[in-house]
């Protein structure tokens, strides 16, 4: 069900905004956009790592939603409907650009290789905290396929069965690719910290 969240300084609930948007009310469309723009844009930005493209996709996702708002029956959460639509819009774009939505077969490095690459040796640990910018840069640096799975699972909170349906892979594949993505992120974060330490 669409929630009864109050929009526009408490004057309008989300349900009312949906109803008014169906009747062509410009303020209702804007209120719905304002409520969800951060989540949708951030999802697009994380999955593409490109601000201009993310804005383009955000626009496309909202337009698709608004065009179909008359068919929204309220059986599911409006936000779930919108986010699913945004994910599909992004995945379609990635496919059009021939970018992998599922990581290409890239066996995880062996322990030996991994240890050799780790700055400071195998016992180096990410010192207890990672700030938002650090992890954002590292996610942006992930190969597209890994980024998709990581963003959908760890950032957006989708379950592996949902990811499998969305991207067209098996649940097991989603799980293993997520693990590889996290391992790559760990490497990227360590490398970036080591580089930063060297310049200081």
């Amino acid at each position, binding site marked *: 069900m669409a929630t009864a969240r109050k929009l526009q300084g408490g004057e309008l609930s989300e349900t009312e905004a949906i109803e*008014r948007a169906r*009747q*062509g*009310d*410009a*303020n*209702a*469309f*804007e209120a719905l*956009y304002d409520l969800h*723009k*951060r*989540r949708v*844009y*951030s*999802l697009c*930005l*994380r999955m593409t790592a490109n601000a201009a493209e*993310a*804005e383009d996709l*955000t*626009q496309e996702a*909202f*337009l698709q939603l*608004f*065009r179909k708002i008359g068919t929204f029956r309220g059986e599911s959460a409006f936000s779930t409907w919108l986010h699913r639509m945004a994910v599909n819009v992004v995945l379609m774009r990635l496919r059009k650009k021939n970018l992998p939505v599922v990581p290409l077969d890239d066996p995880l490095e062996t*322990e030996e290789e991994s240890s050799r690459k780790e700055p400071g040796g*195998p*016992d*180096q*640990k*990410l010192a*207890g*905290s*990672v700030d*938002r910018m650090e*992890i*954002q840069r590292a*996610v942006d640096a992930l190969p597209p396929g890994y980024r998709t799975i*990581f*963003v959908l699972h*760890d*950032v*957006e*909170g989708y379950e592996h069965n949902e990811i499998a349906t969305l991207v067209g892979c098996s649940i097991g594949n989603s*799980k*293993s690719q*997520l*693990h590889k993505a*996290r*391992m790559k*992120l*760990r490497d990227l*974060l360590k490398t970036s910290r080591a580089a930063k330490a060297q310049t200081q």
Partner: protein
Amino acid sequence: MTCKEFQEILPEIIDGGQTIEQESHWKSCGECSNLVADLTLISEQATRLRAADVPSPRVWNAIEIALREEGLINHGHSGLAVMPAHGRRWTMRWLVPAAAALLLSFGVVDYYMAKHQPQTQVAEISPTANVSNPVDAEDSQLLEAVALNAPSMRATYEANLRDVNSYIRDAEDSARMNPSDEDAQHLVMEAYAQKNMIYEMALDRSLR
């Protein structure tokens, strides 16, 4: 349990629990313990990226233009305040149809000028006054009105006006060069209709 065995089942451990045997290895092995801590940290911190960024105002601007073009926004049902707060707002209301009429008439005049002037002469005709500058006096007045009520949107509207003025100039140039090309002339009308829409949206906004 070896490190290799432990790391093979690591995804299940991060996302779920672990058995006593796994926990015993994890606690006694520094390397595996660090690995679990790092991956858990990465997974936890990732949620901070959700809804972390805001799109620029031009995204809504573009959505609103598209919704109006597609007729999904009902002009008679804007949901704006029915009673304006002061007289200046009333005095500006007439500008919406006036600006629309003015812009469309420029478009129609230009359309016929391009269609009926000989090509050699048409090329020398300067563009109409309201589109010759990137943002002209009328546009500046509109931007002032926007700045009064929605200062953050001024830059966006200014950019939109520059873009649409440039579009009008290009379309007019093309129509002059190809006076018998109906598509080129249709583009002129479309360009003016876009500018009209920007005026309508900006005045809607400034009247809220």
